[in-house]
């Protein structure tokens, strides 16, 4: 399990020179395989029982439902890979979504793209606040982001009060982003897919991206190896904030109202999506593609249960079981990988 982490971390691990990318690539695929399998089975079974599930509108709804959680899960993955966590994403999303509503009311003629940029910048600033507190004051992310979860939500309440902005307050073209489709994909889902692709390439193909894995595998070793740990962790938080900001803007596009409570309680869904997607909670391993599929799986379960008219009360219990299953699979994979490595090492001693 720590193996795909080791891909990036290889330079930081002078003691693990025997890791071979080809074998690792296989394992990496294995890591996401269970989630993909679960998703395929779920969709196949549901579609067999209720053909409407895969109707044009059905597919569109599935993709739309996953979009926002997907983007949040990608951002969260960056943070978790560095052995941190961000619990404040729901509150960031809420602030940015309400901010988006306010911008359209204050400046109805602003180009939509400018609103996207502003929303993402706003999110990035909030993420940077988290990141700075964590890296400069050197305090645990869990505590800081639990604190900012409350503070951002409080600020949102103080700012919004009873005010809510509705879909009618926003330009139609903006709302249509979550209605219109290109090649069967809703526009906002395409945005999410592009985000996943960019971040995935960045994580595997660039130095800073791979540094994040190294930091998560072993922060001390990473530091010794000359990786600018503080800067990289800060980067992860800023990008996470940026993506939460993007999710906030998209939320305002898709849903009817944005107000004081928008996005509350989302943080655990996001972490759950990442964990189900095979991101190890202690950092160093996992991919953004896995997390995105995890998000898709979680939201698809909700839709599938409704489509099958299964008692909706089971929904949450099933999500819980999925998370536990993901953790167990993760563990099994890591035990196997560790055993293999140890054997390799023994042979070489």
């Amino acid at each position, binding site marked *: 399990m720590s193996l795909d982490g080791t891909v990036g971390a290889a330079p930081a691990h002078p003691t693990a020179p025997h890791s071979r990318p080809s074998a690792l690539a296989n394992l990496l695929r294995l890591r996401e395989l269970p989630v993909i399998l679960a998703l395929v089975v779920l969709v196949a079974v549901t579609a067999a029982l*209720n053909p*409407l*599930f895969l109707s*044009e*509108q*059905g597919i*569109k*709804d599935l993709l739309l*439902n996953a979009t926002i959680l997907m983007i949040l899960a990608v951002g969260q993955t960056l943070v978790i890979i560095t052995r941190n966590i961000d619990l404040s994403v729901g509150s960031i999303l809420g602030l940015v979504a309400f901010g988006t509503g306010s911008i359209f009311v204050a400046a109805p003629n602003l180009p939509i793209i400018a609103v996207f940029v502003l929303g993402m910048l706003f999110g990035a600033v909030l993420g940077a606040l988290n990141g700075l507190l964590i890296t400069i004051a050197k305090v645990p992310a869990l505590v800081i982001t639990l604190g900012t979860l409350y503070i951002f939500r409080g600020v949102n*309440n103080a700012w*919004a*009060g*009873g*005010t*809510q902005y*509705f*879909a*009618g307050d926003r330009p139609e073209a903006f*709302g249509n982003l*979550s*209605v219109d489709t290109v090649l069967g994909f809703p526009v906002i889902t395409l945005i999410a897919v592009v985000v996943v692709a960019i971040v995935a390439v960045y994580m595997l193909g660039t130095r800073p991206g791979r540094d994040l894995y190294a930091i998560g595998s072993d922060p001390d070793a990473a530091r010794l190896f000359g990786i600018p740990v503080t800067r990289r962790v800060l980067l992860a938080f800023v990008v996470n904030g940026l993506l939460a900001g993007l999710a906030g803007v998209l939320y305002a596009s*898709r*849903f*009817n*109202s944005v*107000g*004081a*409570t*928008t996005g*509350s309680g989302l943080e655990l869904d996001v972490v759950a999506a990442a964990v189900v997607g095979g991101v190890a909670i202690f950092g160093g391993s996992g991919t953004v593609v896995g997390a995105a599929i995890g998000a898709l799986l979680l939201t698809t379960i*909700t*839709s599938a249960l*409704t*489509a*099958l*008219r299964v008692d*909706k009360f089971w929904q949450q219990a099933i999500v819980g079981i999925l998370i536990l299953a993901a953790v167990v699979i993760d563990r099994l994979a890591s035990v196997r990988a560790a055993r293999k490595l140890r054997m390799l090492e023994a042979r070489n001693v």
Partner: protein
Amino acid sequence: MRFIHSGSTRRRAAFAALATSAALVLSACGGGAATEGGGAGADGEQTITFIPKQLNNPYTDVVLGGGEDGATEAGFASSEVVGPLDASASSQVSFINAETQRGTNVIVIAANDPDAVGPALEEARTAGAKIVAFDSDTNPDYRDLFVSQVNAKDVALIQLELISKQIGGEGEIAILSATANATNQNEWIKFMEEELAANPEYADIKLVAKVYGDDDDTKSFQEAQGLLQAYPNLKGIISPTTVGIAATARYLSTSEYKGKVALTGLGLPNEMRPFVEDGTVTEFALWDPAQLGYVAAFAGKALADGSITGEVGDTFEAGELGEREVAEGGIVLVGPPTVFTKENIGDYDF
């Protein structure tokens, strides 16, 4: 080396923590103290406090606006609004407790759960407060009066009439409600079910599902989506809650079901305007929420003055809305619901 200095470091750190947190707390409390208005419960000076289901909800804001006006006109020395940020069953209890302790004369509450607020309201009554429930009733044992928007049965029937007209009197319908425990919602749904079963005009209408969006925009949106997928023959949806109807309208207007599936229920004109204009919704209903708060304030005043006790047949003056009478079950009715259409929606602003 490090350990030699750790003592003074920690001491300094501890003081820093003490000073900063104390300062924070003091400023927070100080800020609050400064805003405190006229003395509560002083001789002859009556005070009223509104506890809505949750703060920062547009419908609630309109209700409370009417309540504040009513409180001033009725002659309360001060009127306050306190309440939780989340509409959970237990979240209102400590607010009731604090108001009890302040000696507030009248507590007006929209209960999130009819029973969870019970023991706290009992204590408030023991301490001398009058309890007026409005919007959503508590268990009748725990309040003096319930100010109801409208006759529960009228609300239920008008929504059935609207949906029947919109789907041509036959087909499958579903209800998208607020929370599963909301007293008012459940009462309306019960009347709707009874009427569907009893009235031959509705013989061809079949209620296939009841789902709950918890008055949460996202959740209501997804419940609406799920309904349409699970019931392909669905002709119409009734959503007797302002959050639910708006979220459902948003989903319908952005999907292929727009114009094909009828939607009605209780909604705020300001929230529903775009959906009426684009044809997603043709008609929906609501009472004037401001009147609800307004009447509740006058009812509270009459109770506090001792001019009524909440018995059936008691009457009191509700300012510009005229005389109101306490009906069976300690209920005071506010007024008939209004039906909003494309033609008249422009006349309303709430």
